[in-house]
């Protein structure tokens, strides 16, 4: 196991939203939990079964933040060796899920 933490500055604060959970903790897959955060950053905590991929995680998450520019959000990831493609897809799915709840709210 390896724990990695990243904080990305900038971006627009999201309107209030209910926490969203997508994905599954299974081999080659991951679980992504999005929760509202008080500060104006995007904080990401990664628990991963695969050691030594910090640089790739940073690149994938930086790309996610660059594409969506979201702030006021805490991202928790439980990873079981997902490829970057799956990570990006889950993050996009999670963001779409909270966009849904924000509209309902």
């Amino acid at each position, binding site marked *: 196991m390896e724990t990695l933490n990243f904080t990305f500055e900038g971006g627009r604060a999201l309107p209030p939203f209910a926490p969203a959970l997508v994905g599954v903790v299974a081999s080659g897959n991951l679980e992504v939990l999005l929760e509202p955060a008080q500060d104006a950053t995007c904080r990401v905590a990664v628990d991963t079964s*695969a050691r030594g991929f910090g640089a*790739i995680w940073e*690149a994938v998450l930086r790309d996610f933040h660059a594409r969506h520019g979201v702030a006021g959000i805490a991202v928790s990831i439980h990873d079981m*060796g997902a*490829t970057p*493609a799956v990570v990006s*897809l889950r993050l996009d799915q999670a963001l779409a899920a909270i966009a849904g709840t924000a509209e309902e709210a």
Partner: protein
Amino acid sequence: MTAIADSPWTRQRTNRAARLARAGMRTKVVPADDIVALLEALIEPGDRVCLEGDNQKQADFLARALTQVSPERVHDLHMVQSVLSLPEHLDVFELGIASRLDFSFSGPQALRLAQLLGAGKLQIGAIHTYLELFGRYFVDLTPKVSLIAAQAADIHGNLYTGPNTEDTPAIVEATAFKSGIVVAQVDEIVERLPRIDIPSDWVDFVVRAPEPAFIEPLFTRDPAQISEIQVLMAMMAIKGIYAEYGVQSLNHGIGFDTAAIELLLPTYGERLGLKGRICRHWALNPHPALIPAIEAGWIESVHSFGSELGMEDYVRARPDVFFTGPDGSLRSNRAFCQAAGHYACDLFIGSTLQMDMMGNSSTATLGRIAGFGGAPNMGADARGRRHASDAWLKAGREARDGLAGSRGMPRGQKLVVQVVETFREHMQPAFVETLDAWKLAEQAAMPLPPIMIYGDDVTHVLTEEGIANLLLCRDDAEREQAIRGVAGFTPAGQKRDRAMVERLRARGIIRRPADLGIDPRDATRNLLAARSMRDLVRASGGLYRPPRRFRNW
């Protein structure tokens, strides 16, 4: 008779007669117990021998028999066979029976082959493609003795090869018509064959094997294992390449990436209104994953290299789609299907393990000598092709637009698509600066690095990040950035020139899912026309009977 025997023009025929006389068998059908003695009588030291090892069907009984001959009598054989699949295929080298090898593919034996080569137990002539090796059977690698496999024989020695005809016709044609000797193992000897695939006067001996010939199901992909990323890439292939070029005739590789495409035709393809406009004619083994598309009326014809276990009854019930004999069962033929795939198909799509920044790809990995089977013939522009189709013409126009002189001469081009997720299992990057093939060539003293598909034949690279259209690249710098631009978060992808990649995207050389109107979040497994083996069985109306290992119900 002596006059004929002494003629300098009929030595091969005389030699053949001497071998048959040594064998001393009065009937074509010989008892299984006599097989080792028969081989010792028929085979001479230094002979070229084809021990039929196909992609799927194996002459396993004859392979075991060949390992039992006395190396004092039979030695220095030159084995010429397409696939090394069984341990016996290499045992003959370890035992000192054979010493030289020409082949096409050695998947399961690749590691041991490299070890034996390193230990000096054999010399490799060359690693061929299937068509090359078959071609050389008729030029300078004609087998003197061929040990083949068929499903059944009659007492005259006519052979029924059943659905897995595969390499047999090419092997027998070359051997029988050049004064060689053909020995066939069969599963059964019957009074009347369902059909005759090989006529008896091309066959010298038939032996009933105690067990049916081994056939491996290589083309069955359980839809349950197809990932959302593979669904996404399949959507991009269908919308961004198949629809774009109007691909009518094609060949698919054997991986999950292409199985996903097959399973998306009747769902996603249907939604895009593409039925009847793409994917009508195939050079393909009877992939179970194609069943839903066939049932939905997408597929007009499928010609096959070999068969697939469990598909027999389904194929038999769909003779309008598959090539079948008067007995109803599939007639496959690797040589013809390879020719069809090379010359008559608009598109090949397949996967790879490594691709470099010029688009050269290889599945060769260190310490293994595997070969590529038919992929290089499928995945190469057919320079001799002359008939036009919309897809071929469009690809050719894109490659030549704006060029003058010899490079501007109008002609078509085959679409050769490499579909790869940027990272493979265990986070191995699929994109690399230097292929392992270079090191392997050095290790094994090969004349060239073992490249599966050359970069200058690849027209499109498809990853989860996008499609790079290499036809539109005008120089190697553009080609390099087009590939880096879809190489995702691999080290090679992160080294991209971002500004140039954006310029390539503006020119349509790189297309992201969004550029194709595809939202990756729509790429769910629900799009698959079958999501399990059971779904495939259901789609076939119960005609498809998967081998036990694929059944979990």
